[in-house]
């Protein structure tokens, strides 16, 4: 009986490989996404970003590759937010002859995929795996459009050092205990020390928790001027909510890495979200344009028109990853993974996402992080100064 089951397994999945990416008039791209499970929210946004990219490119007839216009055909699979499934999906794409891959959401998934990509000789553009660990392994076939994890909190620290008046003296980091958040914290603490802040010992809590009261009670007595959370959305909301409940009011303000740029942050917290700083891979005031998306403002309105909400940086980094892959195929004049890889390594282009150029480890060398602040319920860019949409409000907790 198991024999026939095994054969059934064979029969239903075993169409022969279709003979390489881009036979006929399409350019086949595989995308494993977290459509269910813990990362479903971000996975959905990533899918939107990829989808918009496909629409935009195909609206212009496709991508010109070696004298022929190829339509993008992105195939989505759900990795259920699990790294082992994400890695397995990359293998499955490889069987179908799909060699060009857009990464899943998050560092753990991306890291698991990168190892398989390297082994199979595929090529992957990483849209949301920021942990620096991914780029320290000598992989040659994974390219990331986004800034690495160490920049997330560093950028907030730099913006405070540059713009805050009066300049605060002490900083404490509250951090989730996953790999990505810890790297963020380490990077942020290093920068804070360099900038001359007194850096108190960081407090860690479980990644994904909605109760950070212990950490807050501990830091309350130390009276830090600035509290910076290396967090995801849920812990970021918890810090602000519970700080209010517990009367933890830093003299300067709060910074929360990736939580504030997400619309849910201001929506759930209402007035409590006011003046909280956050860091973003991209904002609608990012400089630069490209032939498919135009500039960042146009990108924002396209996302709104298609999906009915404001563009988040998760959308943008996904679109940018897809854009980089598309442009590389065009300049390679081929869909062969080796040629596309070389073209990615040589890519140097402007885009709605800012400039894109990869260093030998596969990280985007040009990419700065923006710092945003919630002002009147909206996330506005306040740093770097040349992209600022509004002035930096400090202290953020005075009201």
């Amino acid at each position, binding site marked *: *009986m*198991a*024999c026939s*089951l*095994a054969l*059934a*397994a*064979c029969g*239903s*999945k*075993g169409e022969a*490989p279709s003979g390489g990416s881009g036979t006929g008039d399409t350019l086949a791209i595989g995308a494993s996404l977290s*459509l*269910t499970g813990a990362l479903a929210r971000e996975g959905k946004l990533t899918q939107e970003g990829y989808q918009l990219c496909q629409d935009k490119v195909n609206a212009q007839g496709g991508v010109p590759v070696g004298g022929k216009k190829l339509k993008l055909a992105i195939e*989505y*699979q*759900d990795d*259920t937010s*699990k*790294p*082992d499934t994400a*890695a*397995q*999906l990359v*293998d*499955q*794409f*490889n*069987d*179908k002859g799909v060699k060009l891959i857009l990464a899943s959401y998050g560092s*753990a998934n991306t*890291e*698991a995929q990168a*190892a398989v990509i390297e*082994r*199979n000789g595929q090529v992957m553009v990483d849209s949301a795996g920021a*942990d620096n*660990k991914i780029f320290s*392994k000598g992989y040659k076939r994974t390219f990331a459009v986004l800034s690495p994890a160490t920049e997330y909190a560093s950028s907030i620290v730099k913006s405070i050092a540059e713009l805050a008046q009066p300049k605060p003296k002490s900083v404490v980091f509250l951090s989730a*205990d*996953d*790999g*990505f*958040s*810890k*790297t963020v914290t380490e990077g942020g603490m290093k920068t804070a020390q360099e900038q001359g802040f007194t850096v108190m010992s960081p407090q860690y809590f479980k*990644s994904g928790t909605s109760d950070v009261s212990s950490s807050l009670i501990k830091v309350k007595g130390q009276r830090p001027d600035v509290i910076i959370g290396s967090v995801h959305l849920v812990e970021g909301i918890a810090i602000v909510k519970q700080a209010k409940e517990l009367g933890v009011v830093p003299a300067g303000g709060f910074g929360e890495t990736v939580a504030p740029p997400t619309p849910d942050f201001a929506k759930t917290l209402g007035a409590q979200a006011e003046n909280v700083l956050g860091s973003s891979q991209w904002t609608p005031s990012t400089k630069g344009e490209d032939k498919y998306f135009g500039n960042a403002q146009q990108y924002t309105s396209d996302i709104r028109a298609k999906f009915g909400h404001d563009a988040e940086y998760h959308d943008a980094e996904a679109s940018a990853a897809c854009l980089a892959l598309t442009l590389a195929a065009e300049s390679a004049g081929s869909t062969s993974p080796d040629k596309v890889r070389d073209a990615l390594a040589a890519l140097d282009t402007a885009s709605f996402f800012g400039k894109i150029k990869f260093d030998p480890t596969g990280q985007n060398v040009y990419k700065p992080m923006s710092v945003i602040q919630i002002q009147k319920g909206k996330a506005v860019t306040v740093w770097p100064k040349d992209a600022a949409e509004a002035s930096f409000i400090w202290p953020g907790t005075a009201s």
Partner: protein
Amino acid sequence: MAAAARWKPLVPWVSGVLLLLAALGLQSQLYSGQERTVTAIFMFVALAQAWNLLGGYAGYASFGQVVFFGIGGYFTAVAMTHWHLSFWTCLVLGGVVAALFGALIGMPLLRLRGHYFAIATLGVAEGIREVVTNLPGLTGGGAGITLPTVGDQATTAYLGNDGFYLLFLALAALAVLVSGLVAGSRAGYALRAIHQDEQAAAAMGVNTTRIKVLTFALSGLITGLVGATYAFQQVTIFPERLFDVDITVLMVVMVVIGGSGTVLGPLVGAVILQFLSEYLRQNYTSYHIFLLGAIIIVAVVLLPQGAVNYLRDARRTGEYSLLANVRRYRL
């Protein structure tokens, strides 16, 4: 007739060997991603069989079974990274360490019964995950740990999809073999006696504590071996995944769907469920989990005793009607 009866004990062996040969033959027909999918099926066959040893035969449901998986995996990762042992050494040691851990926690915990045993093992698994997360120097903590598989640091060449297919197949075969041997042995009868009535079993002279602890350790050994292999296959491992309660739940679900307390049940359950979830995931990307839930519910209502037990009972009584089956278990 007499000849047939003489050959009857050989039937499981022959069909087992045939299955193994079929699985080996299948390998050449698969492309590497399919190979990985089938490899995952083998992995769950081994895990479900391991869980069934204590959970199915004796009725002691470990809800923290994944702890052995995690210990085997993390032992391998730490030993390969820090102590530069070869994978094969780690595989064996990882299994042994998991078995010892099983014996160690089994002694206090196996005095508990039913759900209390289940929840206590769950507590152990969650606790050990936190310990692993909180020892970043050794285990990499929440950031995960990457096994050395390339360059000078690599102690064993990476096995590749073909290698892992064979290794997981071997583990699955081992697990089925162990389960079959246990089922037919004195230990198997003792475990089933414990399931029926533990006090009566003790009164009949079964050393219940000893047999339970040994079985738990054996089940830990197999799970630990699988965990060690999984860690090497994944290269980078994270505590959330290696101690993921979902893995335990899957083992239970597979055993129950197939038929608990049988040799064939976990095998059938693991193959069906893993194949089904993979098929749904590939073909119904946005609502595959919903469909899987619905199918599990229908299967449970129609076959509450598991597929294998249903077929066995139906063959004996000649009653194949599913409706009659539903009537037996409803309130």
